[in-house]
């Protein structure tokens, strides 16, 4: 990864921009394209808003495009071609399909456009110039460390229910691997009483958790791959008249809704918060660096993850709910 500019530069640049505003911006023109998967999910909305703010601070032209769903490949293919035609210097893209979009990305790079994958990698990962995302293994490790310590503190022998994503989906697999490693479990450990796929969907997670509770009354640790799955698990616990205080429920994401309505009241014990704003900010700054300072991006950038809880576990570093609220995404 080349030298990474930080928000410090952004802050300084704001002052410079104000000064330059009076006599015109003499900085080299940069045009950045941003393609998200869809914008129904506040995660992608937060990412776009930060990209817009950073572009504004840097005096950069930002073109944006989005699809209609997480599987809308066609819209993204068209957006890449349009942006290349408009002469963008770089494209930031969260790919809906890591393989199907490869030809479009290769064409863009052949035309001299820098391509950075955000959030989701291409297959192969080095099909693009750089890849900025959460360290999902670390996210899983954080909630795993917490769940293990909390279970020990409460004198529980962990009986774990795993609410996973979808088989073969890299981020879900990585989170799960990190969680199990921190818990000191392998995938076949008898302490894992259930491991189901929920596609990260609240309804599916509710159904899956209801079934798990029917078969395993002694579940006391629940891992949810994301917050909609955690909220689905809570729905099922409520329907089964099980007090959430009797269960250690951990998740990954850090959206505002789950932090305020799940973590703050203690229904979700802890979540690993990721930062789409960092992906967007660093992505725009990386392309600005490449154009203005001739420092092209390469490799992988970890955009950070923090454990958020209102009920800390002994020996596990975490940030409080107020921190989570300040840095969450969405409403």
């Amino acid at each position, binding site marked *: 990864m080349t030298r990474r500019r*930080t*928000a*410090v530069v*952004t*802050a*300084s640049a*704001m*002052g410079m921009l104000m000064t330059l505003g009076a006599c015109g911006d003499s900085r080299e023109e940069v045009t950045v394209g941003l393609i998200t998967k869809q914008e129904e999910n506040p995660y992608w909305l937060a990412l776009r808003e930060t990209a817009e703010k950073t572009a504004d601070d840097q005096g950069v032209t930002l073109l944006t495009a989005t699809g209609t769903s997480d599987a809308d490949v066609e819209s993204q293919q068209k957006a890449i071609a349009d942006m290349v035609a408009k002469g963008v210097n770089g494209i930031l893209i969260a790919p809906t399909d890591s393989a199907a979009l490869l030809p479009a990305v290769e064409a863009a790079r052949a035309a001299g456009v820098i391509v950075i994958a955000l959030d989701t990698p291409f297959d192969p990962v080095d099909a693009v110039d750089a890849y900025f995302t959460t360290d999902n293994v670390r996210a899983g490790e954080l909630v795993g460390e917490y769940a293990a310590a909390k279970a020990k503190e409460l004198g529980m022998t962990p009986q774990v229910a795993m609410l996973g994503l979808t088989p073969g989906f890299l981020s879900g697999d990585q989170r799960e691997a990190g969680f199990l490693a921190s818990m000191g479990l392998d995938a076949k450990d008898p302490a894992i009483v259930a491991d189901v796929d929920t596609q990260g969907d609240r309804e599916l997670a509710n159904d899956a958790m209801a079934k798990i509770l029917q078969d395993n009354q002694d579940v006391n640790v629940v891992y949810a791959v994301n917050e909609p799955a955690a909220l689905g698990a809570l729905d099922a616990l409520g329907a089964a008249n099980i007090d959430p205080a009797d269960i250690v429920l951990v998740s990954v994401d850090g959206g*505002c809704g789950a932090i*305020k309505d799940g973590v*703050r009241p203690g229904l979700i014990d802890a979540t690993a918060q990721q*930062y789409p*704003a*960092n992906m967007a*900010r*660093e992505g725009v700054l990386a392309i600005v660096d490449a154009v203005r300072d001739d420092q092209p991006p390469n490799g992988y*950038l*970890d*955009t*950070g*993850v*923090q454990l958020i809880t*209102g009920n800390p576990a002994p020996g596990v570093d975490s940030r409080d*709910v*107020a*921190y989570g*609220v*300040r*840095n*969450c995404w969405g409403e």
Partner: protein
Amino acid sequence: MASSDPLSASGGQGAAPVATGAPPDAVEGAGKLVPRHLLVPFILLLLCFTAWGAAANLTDVLVGVFRGIFDMSNFQSSLVQFAYYGAYFLLALPAAFITSRFGYKAGVLVGLGLAALGGLLFIPAGQILAYEMFLLALFVLAAGLSILETSANPFVIAMGDEQTATQRLNLAQAFNPIGANIGVLMGAVLILPGLTPEASKVIMSPQELAESQEADLSLVLTPYIGIAAVLIGIWVLIAVRKMHLPPAPEAIDLTEGGSGGTFSRLWANKHYRYGVFAQFFNVAAQTCTWTFTILYAQDVVGTSPESAGWWLQISLIIFLISRFVMTWLLTIFRPTLLLLLMAGFGVLCCLTSMFVLNIVGLIAVVSISAALSLMFPTIYGVALRGLGDDAKFGAAGLVMAILGGAIMPMVHAAVMDASSPAMGFVVPAICLALVALYALFDLRSHRPGVASAQPEVVAS
């Protein structure tokens, strides 16, 4: 401080002694607000009133800013208010001594000089990157402003005919809330939007973190250097100008009048004694509310820092507008009845902010300012009513109740750290409930209408 500041809301530290100025050309200026030869110094003093309003309310913004820059607890960051209001409290009496011993001009110059020095101390503090150094700078700044305020109020009164003294003081005081709003505006425009996003620090190297700290502290530096520059300019203009002024009032003899002296008489007066405590809790509620509005907006509702700054700005505007509304309502209601109603309203707002953790809670926090708007002058007036000559010293005691602004924000912050950001508002809730009790006491008690130490009888 002013309309936003408890001290000057009712006339400030030096409001009691009204001296008469009789410079050579004052005769031709009799009846005018300010004689022509004192017009420039008067305008310079108006700037002083604006400057200390700005400095005081800029401090409210700093608590959250320092918490973010130094990544510390709410309690640690609340030391900003302890340093600021603590200096105001500690310097209140020495300031009165300086003015009575050396005169108004000397008092104003010492105050301006010390305050400017405090502003300039932000420069080495920004280089050392030490929180303690910023606290020292704030302490020196506030110490200077305390002296300045103590001298400037009677200075303004002395700048002309006795008949127009109240008008002059009211005009000067009107610049204080303007300054208060400018202070918050400076924070909202110059500091908060430029701060390094907190989430971005998660992925910074130690060197990048140090650079971000330096960059953020340089944002803090700018408005304080600006305030220091203005104060130095005023200092020079006042120092080089010859003024014909009356001598400053002499210090009050606390032993005069026999039977234990002024202090004993005041202490035996329940309306006064309880009034000092009520003022302590009023100032405490006000400082807690404004100090933690920004933090509530960010920590509970999740607004951006810049939006949070605007919510504080709205609070001050509500406070200002409510002042006028309360003035009108006071023509309809008995002062302590209105005080009781507004204190009750304030308690309800605090409770709402504690348990409704969304935008409604934030609106409740902002609405507390409406309740606060009448409190300082009302408590001031009720506590001093019928004290006669003892009112001069009694006023100083009420002003020193500003200590509430130094201590209670730390308690509020400690509750936040131990419980949650919203639960911290239990502190202003209790403070306002105690103010309500004072109002109730006054409403239910018979009161002799003369200056005396006779105890009041509380109606059963």
